[in-house]
């Protein structure tokens, strides 16, 4: 009743092909942007920005990157954290050595560096598929982290190998409070997410999906396999690289290769599994889920334990968290392999015919 598109006629091809063809969707999206850009910075405290919103946004960007590679193009990758590391270190070095470049440009160039590394490590995908490719991306993960630690040029010859990221400035406007950091990250993520959504709808996206579904058939109908796969690696690594730069500059404040470990690659993979592979929305949902869930569990479980008068020591809490995470992943794979994004889609489809059941 509320969500029907009856009465909305398109009179041009452009209108027909727009990203959000239903007016209610457009209104909802603009409202969301208004809340995110205007309401949140005015209302929320530092904790919300530093501990929740910024990590959600940063990991959403990385998850979009991995989604492009694994969800849309079907190339399983376990090396996303390595590309984030490349992005973070490249950004640090660009800001350090080419200080006259605006920092935003440095971040984008860092993404390009990550893309180049992504292409290099994506070359095996031309011959290898499936789990074997996953193992090849593990090679990227370990090699990149090793190389960044080993060659002092990357860390500007610092004795400890941990470097503090430079203060961020947006064309002279200092980004030094949590609220400003949040707005900066939000802007970058919004622009890049829209770009990704459009890419997914375009010819590139369709050729990725063709390669994912059956690459032999895709090759038969004329899709250039190598170019498509390498393009997927490049763009995915670009996104992961920018996410890594944002992670180092706007979230943690230090650039350290160990932070970009295999654990982080797995986390991003979990985010897209739970959120929904092959959707942009899924990246956001998954990132939110995995950032909020540990905090939620650390509040809820002691409360339940207190309510049932059970004593819990802190370590057991974290182990329970791990167990619940693992169980949730399996649960989602069984119940809804297409992730929470699919549930959202189902909800929207039901809304369209509400209050009728079918």
């Amino acid at each position, binding site marked *: 009743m509320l969500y029907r598109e009856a009465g909305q006629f398109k009179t041009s091809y452009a209108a027909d092909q727009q990203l959000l063809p239903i007016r209610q969707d457009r209104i909802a999206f603009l409202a969301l942007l208004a809340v995110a850009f205007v309401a949140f910075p005015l209302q929320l405290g*530092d904790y919300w920005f530093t501990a929740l919103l910024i990590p959600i946004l940063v990991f959403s960007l990385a998850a979009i990157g991995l989604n492009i590679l694994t969800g849309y193009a079907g190339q399983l990758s376990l090396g996303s954290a390595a590309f984030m590391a490349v992005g973070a270190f490249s950004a640090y070095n660009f800001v350090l050595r080419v200080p006259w470049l605006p920092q935003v440009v440095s971040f984008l160039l860092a993404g390009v560096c990550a893309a180049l590394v992504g292409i290099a490590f994506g070359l095996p995908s031309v011959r290898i598929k499936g789990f074997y490719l996953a193992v090849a991306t593990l090679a990227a993960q370990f090699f990149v982290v090793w190389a960044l630690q080993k060659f002092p040029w990357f860390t500007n010859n610092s*004795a*400890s190998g941990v470097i503090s990221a430079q203060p961020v400035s947006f064309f002279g406007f200092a980004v030094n409070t949590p609220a400003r950091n949040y707005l900066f990250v939000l802007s970058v993520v919004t622009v890049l997410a829209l770009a990704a959504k459009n890419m997914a709808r375009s010819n590139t996206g369709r050729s990725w999906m063709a390669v994912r579904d059956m690459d032999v058939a895709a090759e038969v109908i004329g899709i250039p396999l190598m170019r498509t796969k390498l393009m997927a690696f490049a763009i995915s690594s670009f996104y992961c690289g920018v996410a890594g730069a944002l992670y180092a500059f706007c979230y943690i404040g*230090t650039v*350290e290769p160990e932070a970009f470990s295999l654990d982080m690659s797995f986390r991003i993979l979990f985010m897209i599994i739970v959120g929904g592979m092959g959707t942009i929305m899924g990246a956001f949902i998954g990132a939110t889920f995995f950032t909020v869930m540990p905090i939620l569990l650390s509040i*809820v479980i*002691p409360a339940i334990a207190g309510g049932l008068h059970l004593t819990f*020591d802190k370590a057991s809490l974290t182990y329970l968290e791990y167990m619940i995470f693992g169980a949730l992943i399996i649960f989602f794979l069984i*119940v*809804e392999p297409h992730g929470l994004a699919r549930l959202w889609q189902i909800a929207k489809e039901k809304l369209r015919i509400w209050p009728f059941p079918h």
Partner: protein
Amino acid sequence: MFDTRKLRTVRTALAGLIGLAAAAAAAPALAQANEQFISILSFRVGPYGPAGTGIFSGFIDYLTYVNQKEGGVGGVKLTWEECETEYQAARGVECYERLKTKSPTKGTMIHPVSTPITYALLDKTATDKVPLVQTGYGRTDTIDGRYFPWAFPLITTYPMQATAIVKYLAAKEKGNLRGKKIAFLYLDSAYGKEPIVYLQAEAKVNGFELTTIPITPPGTEQGAQWQQIRQNQADYVIFWGFGVMNSAAMKAAQKIGYPRDKIIGSWWAGSEEDTVPAGDAAKGYMSAAMNVSGKTPLIADMEKTLYGASPTGSLQDRGKIGGINYNRGVVIGLITVEALRVGQGKYGKKVLSGEEVRWALEHLDMSEARLKALNASGLMPAMKTSCLDHEGSGRIKIQQWDGSKWNLVSDWIDGNRALVRPLLEQSAIEYGKSKGITPRDCSKEQ
């Protein structure tokens, strides 16, 4: 067509979870007016969990002990809350921000006991005006209080430790290390790489040959590295490990027949959690220690008070009492409480703010006499901080594992201050330049 059953189950599950969360979050515990709230960023989980359990239990036990025996500090009760960081920077930042909101003192004093979390919090704590204390770890150039007013690498730092170990080895070799071969086996991380520059300088001065051999984390496989050491015929091995690689090193050394009494580890490679899993392989292994182990009078009294008839202690496994990590936690507690006492001495018996605690940390004087009054003689080295010197001591002892406990084989050894200080000051100046910080003038402050 649509799987409404699926949708319904997941919807109810999510709704239930959100409801629970809302109910739980609706009643946050805020610190009361006359309580000194301390944020505790702990790690009891993960590869370094065993060490963390010992340290944080020791810390919390000491705070409980002070509350029970003296009713707090100057009548102000101590309260705290733990938050699990899993030794990761991201979780550390989240814990810090969350606990910051729980009291007006923003956590009073932060002890991350983790170098990556320390680096992540360095700028944040300076902006929030909360002191960051790094007892024997963290960012070493913070000893220069002119550039780092809010960071305190108390007791001692890695370069001081490394140079002190070299002093001990020199003493063992009757003062002459010329022509000897020392291998530096280290974890390939910030922590492991830090002493290299200083050891290389010491090698030049003392005339010994230094070989550096890295181990990739987590370091379970060290066969190749120890074979290199055997090939090299190193006279001594200085071992800078952390976590599982510690016991793996002792076992690997045994495997190729390298005598363990020629290996000296850092204090993060010298606790019961490292030697016990290695079993017989650990006999004779030595390590540096910034606090001693064993049930010294203070620890014994704590055990009696907290683990007696109605236990209020935080340890599940009482075997850890008196271990190196437990005692380290107690030392951290000692420093925390002493800082509060010194601060109250100047600002009055009330809940202290971050600024006031910072002043106190810069004016600590835990001399031997003071330690005796605290019943902690010999537990930690005497320590005196100042604006220029945020370290306060720089001394370590060497201990040796005999198969069941640690025995001290030296007295407090000072590091090579003359070598270490100028290099650290240089690094601090560069940090100041890159961040645009004007150094404080220590002579102007009192």
